[in-house]
């Protein structure tokens, strides 16, 4: 008998955060992520922590900033429209080099959009979280187990590289239940936090947490230093899964819940005699460009599948330097494709190749 428990994705993520030492949460209710806050509101007081409902997403992310500045592991979660509101705070947190974890259980957009599963915040998460030269680490779980595992990883990565890490999930992953084993991951070594503002105790010089530089040269230097860290992350922290790509003529590229649908489609297409595989980015930033470039040596055609209008297509094209055709299939607004829909697209491409 294993140590597995059956849990919703949102709750597994919340429990994994606690197990990672995060006992402080600041958030604001929004569907479909509210279970994260509700779960933590029940659990955190019992472990000496705090789940505080802020007056807005803006306040919540700034409470996260204050907590992070003291070296405390801290998290906020929201869904698409709420992440837009957090944008300002994310930029400041990145500019101050503070670690924290931000969860986006995506729903359809733009505007108020809908409340059904979506991946329409891909560009926002990977390229334009907020103003300024900055990135956040973006992890895309595709199972309830990964909602837990990657939450733990996000806290470690945030601390190691002193930057925000985002869990980019969707309403389906948040709501579904699967078995989860909270001991499946080993935590990493975290550097000492010497930069914290929690009262110097007369034992060190005062620390300042700040993103303001009136001297352009100093600001440039700070950004360049940060981008060196980004380069290190790109080198060391790319995560992806390859599924049946070894002999594949066609490779699907999909993450999150969509990658699950694509796995079923790969099996069905293989049964129909088409050599298909799947590359599933687990880190969306840093992006697994190298793995895609390598696949482009042998693969004849790439098919990007997303719950949006094709936001990841450019990243695939850039990764393979447009050496192979890249098609797109997706649904948006909260609609989910079936594996059959994906197989139909595969067949169209396979017809062209043959």
């Amino acid at each position, binding site marked *: 008998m294993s140590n597995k428990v*059956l849990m919703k994705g949102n709750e597994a993520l919340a429990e994994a955060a606690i197990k990672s030492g995060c006992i402080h949460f600041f958030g604001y209710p929004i*569907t*479909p992520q509210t279970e994260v806050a509700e779960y933590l509101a029940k659990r955190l007081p019992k472990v000496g922590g705090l789940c505080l409902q802020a007056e807005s997403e803006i306040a919540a992310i700034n409470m996260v900033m204050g907590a992070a500045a003291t070296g405390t592991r801290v998290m906020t979660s929201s869904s698409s429209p709420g992440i837009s509101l957090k944008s300002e705070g994310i930029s400041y947190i990145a500019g101050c080099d503070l670690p924290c974890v931000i969860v986006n259980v995506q729903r359809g957009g733009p505007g108020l959009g809908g409340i059904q599963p979506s991946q329409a915040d891909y560009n926002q998460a990977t390229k334009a979280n907020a103003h300024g030269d900055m990135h956040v680490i973006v992890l895309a779980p595709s199972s309830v187990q990964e909602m837990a595992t990657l939450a733990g990883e996000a806290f470690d990565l945030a601390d190691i590289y002193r930057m925000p890490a985002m869990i980019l999930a969707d*309403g389906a992953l948040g709501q579904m239940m*699967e078995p989860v084993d909270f001991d499946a991951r080993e935590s990493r070594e975290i550097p000492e936090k010497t930069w914290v503002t929690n009262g110097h105790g007369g034992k060190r010089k005062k620390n300042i947490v700040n993103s303001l530089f009136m001297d352009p040269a100093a600001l440039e230097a700070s950004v360049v230093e940060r981008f060196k860290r980004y380069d290190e992350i790109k080198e060391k922290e790319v995560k992806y899964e390859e599924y049946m790509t070894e002999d594949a003529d066609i490779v699907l590229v999909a993450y999150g*819940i969509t990658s*699950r*649908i694509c796995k079923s489609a790969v099996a069905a297409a293989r049964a129909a005699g088409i050599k298909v595989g799947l590359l599933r980015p687990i880190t969306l930033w840093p992006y697994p460009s190298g793995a895609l470039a390598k696949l482009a040596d042998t693969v004849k055609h790439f098919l990007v599948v997303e719950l949006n209008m094709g936001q990841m297509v450019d990243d695939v094209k850039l990764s393979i330097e447009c050496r192979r055709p890249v098609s797109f299939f997706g649904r948006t607004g909260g609609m989910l494709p079936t594996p*059959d829909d994906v197989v139909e697209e595969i067949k169209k491409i396979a017809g062209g190749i043959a």
Partner: protein
Amino acid sequence: MTHNIVISGFGGQGILFASKQLAKSAMHEDLHVSWLPSYGPEMRGGACNCSVIISDEEIGSPLIPHPDILIVFNLPSFDKFESQVAPGGLLIVDSTLVNKKSERSDINASYIPATGLAAENKLDGLANVIVLGHLLKKTGMFDYDSFLSFMVSSIPPAKAALIEKNTLALKIGYDYES
């Protein structure tokens, strides 16, 4: 071995309990399992359905466009999902609440008056467990005794009276000849 199960009805009919019981039993036997509820405005309208996939292989899509087992507890669910059952699949209908029969010849349909049987036996609210019993009979997906002992093991001591009722409900469903 893969079972793609959809259970559908109104909120309050124990659909979540029944589907979670299947999922937990599968996990207990170290099988792969996924459980996906319908949610959103549909949920607020009173309709409730769950998709449970149980497999000895890794599960891809948790969505079930074509269930090979469909259990319906009301007419809207019958109308919505009956045509989607995969050929060769199994349809279980609570015939107390659904006064309609499938006209498909490519699926196996089973009609059990679960809500009526529950009322007759003073097992109000346990039509869901009666149907689970019938599902075990029809599919043999779990061993009856181990399913029963796992199910009652999750009942807290404070509600010990429920053990007897659930045991009876499961047996009634299992023994029913549809």
